[in-house]
């Protein structure tokens, strides 16, 4: 196992490369998710009056 991580003496180069890719992908995925959440949240807030109006309408129809 330690032999695997040693990468034949090239551990620094190999793991700095693979590590950077892992960090970059994780960061991008997290960023895309939080942006999506934020966009939908803002949409919900901006449409809140409309939403409550439609809820009121549905209630009065009952």
């Amino acid at each position: 196992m330690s032999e695997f991580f040693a990468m034949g003496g090239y551990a620094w180069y190999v793991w700095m490369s693979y590590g950077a890719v892992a960090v970059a992908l994780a960061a991008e995925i997290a960023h895309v998710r939080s942006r999506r959440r934020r966009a939908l949240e803002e949409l919900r807030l901006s449409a809140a009056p409309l939403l409550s109006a439609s809820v009121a309408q549905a209630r009065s129809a009952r």
Partner: protein
Amino acid sequence: MLINWYRFSSPVSFYPLAGSWSYLFGILAALLAGAGLFVALVAAPTDATQGDAYRIIYIHVPAAWMAMFIYLVMAGWSAFALGFNTRLSAMMAQALAPTGAMMAALALWTGAFWGRPTWGAYWAWDARMTSTLILLFLYLGIIALRHAIEDPRRADRACALLALVGAVNVPIIYFSVQWWNTLHQGSSISLTVAPKMALTMLLGILVMTAAAWCYTIAVTLARVQSIIVERERGAEWLDSLIHLEAAR
């Protein structure tokens, strides 16, 4: 063809489609990356001359290819946006830029960590490396230009124009190893000549490249969903989207 492609050119019908495709390609990317990493780090034998340092190419080559391909796809969407004045094409171009910038940065980074043990230098002002650095700056410039212009439709046109002008850099990167006597080696994989590497290594690179493609598609479609919501706010169909999302 029975598929009505025009249907997908409007954000309304594209939004739910982008969601399910993003999910599908995300799963595919994870599966391919798992298999590719196994080949790259475990199954593939140690290189006779480069030792285990060569294992960096399994991420370096896909990242460098993607940096170039994403640029071409982005320029293609930009041409569409300029020519047909379609919102969604410009949104697709906008969604591709950050991932393209990341791929270019990773290509340079992994290239540096491969170059040090192999050529003896992290960086050199070599034609291919310099033109890839310019590619990264083009991506960053397009993203910055987008943020500098308030009106999104004007930003679309400006970014599309910059993307199209910058596209001239992609063939320069690709052919740089032939046009100039560079430090960077020539290509190891070609469609016309038998590959200059073992089959396992070639397979590893191809699987990792497929994973990078799927990842890019997944993350771009997820990002374009956010862009649609951010830019189409106030549109009636988005209000029904809230009902859908709230129902989940």
